[in-house]
């Protein structure tokens, strides 16, 4: 301190005698490598220079000047000249968050130079959840991203929505794995993934043009690290148990009989009624195991990463399982100083067994019926079929292999230019085998002749991308430009055929050998149900031109412009091309001088973007008027004649649907970035949505036939934000982050002109009744039905109010919404949205010595679920427990109608719309890493054990298994038809590096 005082005093004394002098020096990094191009400036003057190739600089300054040394990615240093003439500077990398390189489309960018909204997830987070699907790791981790398991069945692929539902079509984002554009990544092992980057706003996604409208998830797989030297081996193994999270409250045999007696006296003594808990018979805990072994490393000439993984999941329902082997091979070869060649390759063979939908039948099966007869055979379960027999006689398999990979070459020319070419392939082959033996349980549940169905499908897609990029720092200016040309083609073919009465029933004979298909009655052996064709969604080609320029001035001001032009074979030649531009700007406020007054703020950046993207996820046939095959019976004697004529007319005027997105973002770091935050507002407007709508029947396309049009608009707006606090208390390191997003989804237009319907119906029950209507002013897939207002208590009350002609006391009072004095279809109204208003994530991490702990909580709020499994009731089925409170006479209940097997009280109404909000303890992981003092002795660099639980507990008012429902498409979303439940998973694992 004394020294400091003396120093200041000396400065004051010397003040008047400053002289200009040449100051020189050398700038190096922490490894003593010279840093070229660093800015050296005299503070508060315009004088400045840059360091040379050898890091050297020379500048004129006076002794009271302060020199400012700055460089992209390096921490800025301010050094007073004092009386020195030589100042050597060691520049250190800037804090990690800011210096982080973010993978964006067709390149990388420093996090600080990013103008778009991009979220990154590291491998650590991706492997937290035990799942076949790496994208499960994103749930509750990224603001604005909603991951929903549509089914708990092994092999089921979750649905992902980024910033709401932007279209009536496939609203899933695309994946770009090491440069290859894909629709799903179920072939990837989470352990092989280095990071996932989620591109959310148009500035980030527009470079993917016609395919970027629903967001882009960039997946980077692991490679050997340069400078790593010796090979590193890693083994990860995990064993898990899956447990049904909860059972649905259904009636016991006794309760069932009691309710039935209310309707029609049937059971003399309800205490003697059997009680079968079908849920207990169908679900049981099951295991998952996974193992992965990898080797990685690098030499001067190569970088390599090879791994072999194995994953096997048994379902909590018998006869459902998934088994997968993952091969991963990523290599880079440095051919010369300027040329490198890489390959990224995944080969994934898999085998899957699918169970029949016994979730639904176990839900409906009457509890007063027993599963087995006295003789041990399956007993008849009226109306539903015996779920256990369904399982026993089901043999439904898929097996196949998927290979995804690319070869990549990059040459650096004239220092600043890079030419890249990449050729990638995604090839898949799948074979489905389904065998049902001949059996008889009941007249309703039988199969006369054993049946073998085989289906093959294969698809191949290739993508060839060529880019030229230019990157140069010149003084304070940094310019990064990439331009490219890409081509891709996808094709597929499928074939399926059925044979009956195969000569032997064992799996060894599950082949369609014509001579073994034995038909004694007709004396002919036939294969039937033959079908062969292409998948309409997997048959197209595209050509694209792309361009992006990123300009940064003084690491403070950033401008980005991108442009992509796509041509697709899915559209007729006149509408084939679409143009997708975007513009964005960013300002790193914290690098301004005036921010020095706010030392608390270590990082502050504002950014904004505008841009357009597209969606082409329609079948390639929509532009054509296709034909159909018919049968006409003619002749004496009558016989079938083949016939062909036109089917539904196509629409040759179809064009791209386009999404315009505006984004405003703020990034902030406080207290040396202990607290970091990122906030965004977005506004996504999708226009010209490709939508199939009903057309007039006079067109002759058949009743209710739909044609595709560019005839809808949808707007999604919302905020999203994430706050993270990271610090250390003594030896305890910890981090807490909270993230959330809001979504407001509104349909702005459907149809709109004469001859096109203005409502899109969805969520069709098996009775053919739709429970959703997407129409102007409502969210996509809005639940639509009757509002109820209590229960009719008496005939007087019934007569005094509008009611259905068949209504009786004890029935639900349906609200006469349009006040016309009668209850009819026009009284159906909006009953809620399947889309959550808010999603939240709350994550805590802590470590102490060798221990690490993480807790993830996740929630969605403000959405509804339609309990469709309860509503379709043409026959007596089991009831959910609330029926015990049913109306039995005046005053007994004004909420639960009289018990019935079907009828008025089962019309789609708000009785079946439930709150879909939930808060879930998503994951708790506790790990322990052995001290290196111990492991080093046995040549192990790291050894970690952990236990974890996923989906441990869910707080929800929904009566079903899990409030995570998903749906087949966005207009039939969050409707519980009795889906395979998502289970809780408890695991023990080991991670070994040597």
């Amino acid at each position, binding site marked *: 301190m004394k020294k400091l005082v003396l120093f200041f005093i000396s400065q004051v004394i010397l003040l008047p005698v400053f002289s200009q002098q040449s100051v020189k020096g050398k700038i190096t990094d922490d490894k003593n490598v010279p840093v070229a191009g660093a800015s050296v400036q005299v503070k508060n003057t315009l004088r400045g220079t840059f360091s040379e190739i050898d890091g050297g600089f020379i500048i004129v300054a006076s002794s009271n000047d302060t020199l400012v040394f700055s460089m992209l990615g390096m921490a800025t240093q301010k050094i007073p000249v004092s009386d020195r003439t030589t100042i050597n500077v060691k520049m250190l990398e800037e804090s990690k968050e800011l210096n982080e390189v973010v993978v964006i489309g067709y390149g990388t960018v420093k996090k600080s130079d990013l103008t778009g909204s991009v979220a990154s997830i590291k491998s650590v987070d991706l492997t937290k959840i035990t799942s076949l699907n790496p994208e499960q790791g994103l749930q509750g981790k990224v603001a604005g991203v909603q991951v929903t398991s549509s089914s708990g069945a092994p092999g089921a692929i979750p649905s992902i929505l980024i910033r709401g539902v932007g279209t009536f079509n496939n609203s899933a984002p695309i994946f770009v794995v090491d440069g290859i554009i894909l629709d799903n990544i179920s072939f990837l092992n989470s352990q092989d993934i280095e990071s996932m980057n989620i591109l959310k706003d148009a500035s980030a996604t527009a470079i993917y043009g016609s395919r970027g409208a629903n967001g882009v998830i960039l997946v980077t797989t692991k490679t050997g690290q340069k400078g790593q030297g010796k090979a590193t081996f890693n083994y990860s193994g995990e064993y898990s148990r899956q447990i049904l999270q909860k059972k649905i409250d259904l009636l016991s045999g006794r309760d069932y009989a009691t309710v039935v007696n209310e309707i029609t006296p049937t059971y003399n003594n309800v205490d003697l009624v059997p009680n079968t808990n079908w849920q207990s018979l169908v679900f049981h805990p099951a295991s998952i195991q996974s193992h992965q072994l990898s080797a990685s490393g690098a030499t001067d000439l190569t970088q390599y990463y090879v791994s072999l993984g194995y994953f096997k999941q048994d379902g909590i329902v018998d006869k459902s399982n998934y088994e997968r082997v993952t091969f991963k091979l990523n290599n880079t070869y440095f051919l010369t100083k*300027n*040329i490198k060649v890489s390959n990224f390759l995944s080969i994934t063979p898999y085998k899957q067994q699918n169970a029949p939908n016994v979730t639904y039948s176990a839900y409906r099966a009457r509890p007063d019926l027993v599963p087995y007869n006295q003789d041990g055979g399956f007993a008849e379960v009226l109306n539903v079929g015996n779920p256990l027999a369904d399982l026993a006689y089901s043999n439904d398999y898929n097996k196949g292999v998927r290979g995804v990979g690319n070869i990549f*070459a990059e*040459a650096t*020319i004239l220092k600043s230019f890079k*030419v890249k*070419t990449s050729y990638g392939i995604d090839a898949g082959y799948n074979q489905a085998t389904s065998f049902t033996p001949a059996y008889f349980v009941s007249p309703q549940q039988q199969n006369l002749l054993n049946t073998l169905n085989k289906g093959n499908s294969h698809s191949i897609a290739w993508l060839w991308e*060529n880019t030229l990029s230019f990157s140069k720092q010149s003084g304070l200016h940094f310019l990064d430009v990439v331009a490219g040309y890409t*081509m891709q083609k996808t094709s597929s073919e499928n074939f399926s055929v059925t044979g009956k009465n195969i000569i032997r029933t064992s799996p060894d004979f599950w082949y369609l050998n014509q001579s073994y298909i034995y038909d004694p009655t007709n004396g002919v052996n036939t294969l039937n149900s033959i079908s*062969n*064709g292409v998948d309409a969604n997997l*048959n*197209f*080609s*595209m*050509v694209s031109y792309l361009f992006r320029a990123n300009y940064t001035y003084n690491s403070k001001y950033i401008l980005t412009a991108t442009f992509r032009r796509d*041509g697709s*074979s899915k559209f007729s*030649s006149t509408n084939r091309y679409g143009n997708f531009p975007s513009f964005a700007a960013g300002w790193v406020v914290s690098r301004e001088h005036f921010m020095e007054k706010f030392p608390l703020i270590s990082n502050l950046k504002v950014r904004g973007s505008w841009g357009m993207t597209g969606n082409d996820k329609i079948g*390639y*046939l929509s532009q*054509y*008027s*296709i*034909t159909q095959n*018919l*049968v*006409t*019976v*003619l*002749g*004496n004697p*009558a*016989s*079938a*004649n*083949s*016939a*062909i*004529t*036109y089917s539904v*007319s*196509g629409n040759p005027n179809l064009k791209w649907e386009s999404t315009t997105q505006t984004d405003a973002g703020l990034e902030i770091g406080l207290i040396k970035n202990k607290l970091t935050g990122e906030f965004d507002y977005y506004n996504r407007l999708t226009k010209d949505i490709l939508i199939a709508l*009903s*057309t*007039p*029947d*006079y*067109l*002759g396309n058949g*009743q*209710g*036939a739909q044609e595709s049009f560019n005839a809808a608009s949808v707007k999604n707006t919302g905020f999203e934000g994430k706050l993270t606090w990271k610090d250390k208390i003594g030896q305890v390191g910890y981090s807490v982050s909270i993230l959330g997003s809001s979504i407001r989804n509104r349909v702005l237009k459907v149809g709109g*002109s*004469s*001859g*096109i*319907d*203005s409502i899109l119906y969805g969520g069709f029950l098996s009775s053919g009744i739709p429970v959703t209507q997407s129409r102007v002013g409502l969210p996509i897939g809005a639940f639509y039905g009757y509002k109820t207002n209590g229960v009719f208590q008496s005939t007087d009350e019934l007569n005094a109010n509008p009611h259905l*002609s068949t209504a009786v006391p004890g029935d639900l009072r349906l609200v006469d919404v349009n006040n016309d004095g009668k209850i009819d279809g026009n009284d159906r109204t909006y009953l809620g949205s399947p889309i959550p208003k808010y999603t939240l994530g709350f994550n805590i991490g802590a470590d102490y010595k060798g221990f690490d702990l993480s807790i993830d909580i996740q929630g969605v709020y403000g959405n509804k679920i339609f309990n469709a499994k309860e509503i379709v009731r043409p026959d007596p089925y089991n009831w959910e427990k609330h029926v015990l409170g049913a109306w039995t006479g005046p005053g007994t209940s004004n909420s639960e109608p009289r018990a019935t097997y079907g009828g008025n009280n089962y019309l789609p109404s708000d009785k079946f719309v439930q709150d879909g909000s939930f808060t879930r303890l998503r994951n708790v992981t506790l790990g322990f890493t052995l001290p290196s003092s111990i492991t080093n002795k046995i040549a192990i660099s790291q050894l970690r054990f952990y236990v974890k639980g996923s989906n441990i507990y869910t707080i929800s008012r929904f009566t079903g298994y899990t409030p995570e429902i998903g749906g087949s498409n966005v207009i039939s979303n969050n409707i519980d038809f009795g889906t395979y439940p998502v289970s809780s998973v408890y695991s023990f694992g080991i991670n070994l590096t040597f």
Partner: protein
Amino acid sequence: MKTRIILFFSVIILLTGCTDFLKTDPQGQLIEASFPVSSSDALLATTAVYAAVRNWYYNSGGYPILDIMSDDAYKGSNKNDQLATVGAYDNFTFNTTGDGLDRWWATLYQGIKWANVVIEKVPDISMDTTLRNRYLGEARFMRGLFYFDLVRAWGGVPKVTASIPPLHLGRANSKEIYSLIVSDLQYAETHLTKKSELISSDKGRATAGAAEALLAKVYLFQKDFVNAEKYALKVIQSNEYSLEPWFIDANGVNGNNGVESIFEVGALGVEDYNGGGAQYANTQGVRGSPNRGWGFNRPSIDLRKSFEPGDTRLKGTIIDLGDTIDGVFIKGDPDPANDPVITLNQNGDTINIQCYNRKVWTPGNDTPTQWAHHRRLIRYADVLLMAAEALNENGKQTDALTYLNQVRKRARGGNILILPDVTITDKNLLRDKILLERRHELALEGERFWDLVRTGKAATVLGPLGFVPGKHELLPIHQSEIDISQGSLTQNPDY
């Protein structure tokens, strides 16, 4: 090295320059541009038009609502089955969302589209001219047939003459539709072969005789009795047709493509449209035991009572419980709560008897065999009665009686003591007599309601059932069609 890099990337750039990369032709799928283009395509497209008449919906939307609206039949099935939907046609309470109206309308227009494919595309195919004209004739016959249903049911409807019409169309007036029908049928008459000239595997295709018979009916509905007489007599004088000796064969399996059949719908005993089955008869088949169908279109007490004593057509029209047909005992639906054998009112009058439509019977005791029924769309007896009606209107009572009595003769079944020849020559009385004869001959064949409407008797006969004159002569266009058209289609009066 630089040269090698330049070479490498030059090769790549050259490779990307291929043309037509974005043209993906439909795989394994014919489209408008590629079909029909040959003589065999023309045959496939022509044959396809007939598939429309086997569609369940072609039959007034599935349920036989035309008979149910008439005094010949009740809804049928058991008491509650489709009470709100099909029952509405029994008492004229149906409205613009009436069940089946959309299905019927859509299927007629679907048939029209399929006919238009032939009419529009086949002329451009280079092929044998005679054959081409025959195909065009078949398609135009079928288009006329479909429009005739449309104009009778709804009046002036959108006039669609292109295979891919514009989205936005208004209603034409009924005169325009009738003139399209007449020109189609006249073309068909000129270019189609006689029935006798069809090879056996082509039986069931439209013929010149079918076109003439349909023209007679089309003119009758327009009260153009001169032309109605002309075309009915053309059919009669062609000597291509005669009455089946036994009435039950006129609609039964023995008469399939027989002497009396002028145009019929072929079908196979398969419980599946795509397999060749027709659900028309299944909809009306005996309920319970044997289980042949759903039992809609129950013959009314009034119809039963209207037959003259001994008329063989009574048992040829109604199946009663206890009957044995083709060795099958008719037990019916044994559910006294929902469908008693006989229902009495408070006065003790019989108001309902469980019975079924005999005309759709096919031999057998299960459901699939019922799907093999060939529905007759026009048969010779109808033509004879149309001739009689037109001749009477044209003042030729003697000739009219000849044809009327031919029909009565067959109905006698050889018993000369019953159904004496009609000798009335008073035009008005004879008109009524012919209308009554049509009722007995053609009951439950979808003719009665329209006969009452076109002769102006609907108000009197059907008024007690709920028929409102000035409204119920036409059906409402289904609300969904009106909604989608967003105002370009107007509704029929009073709906």
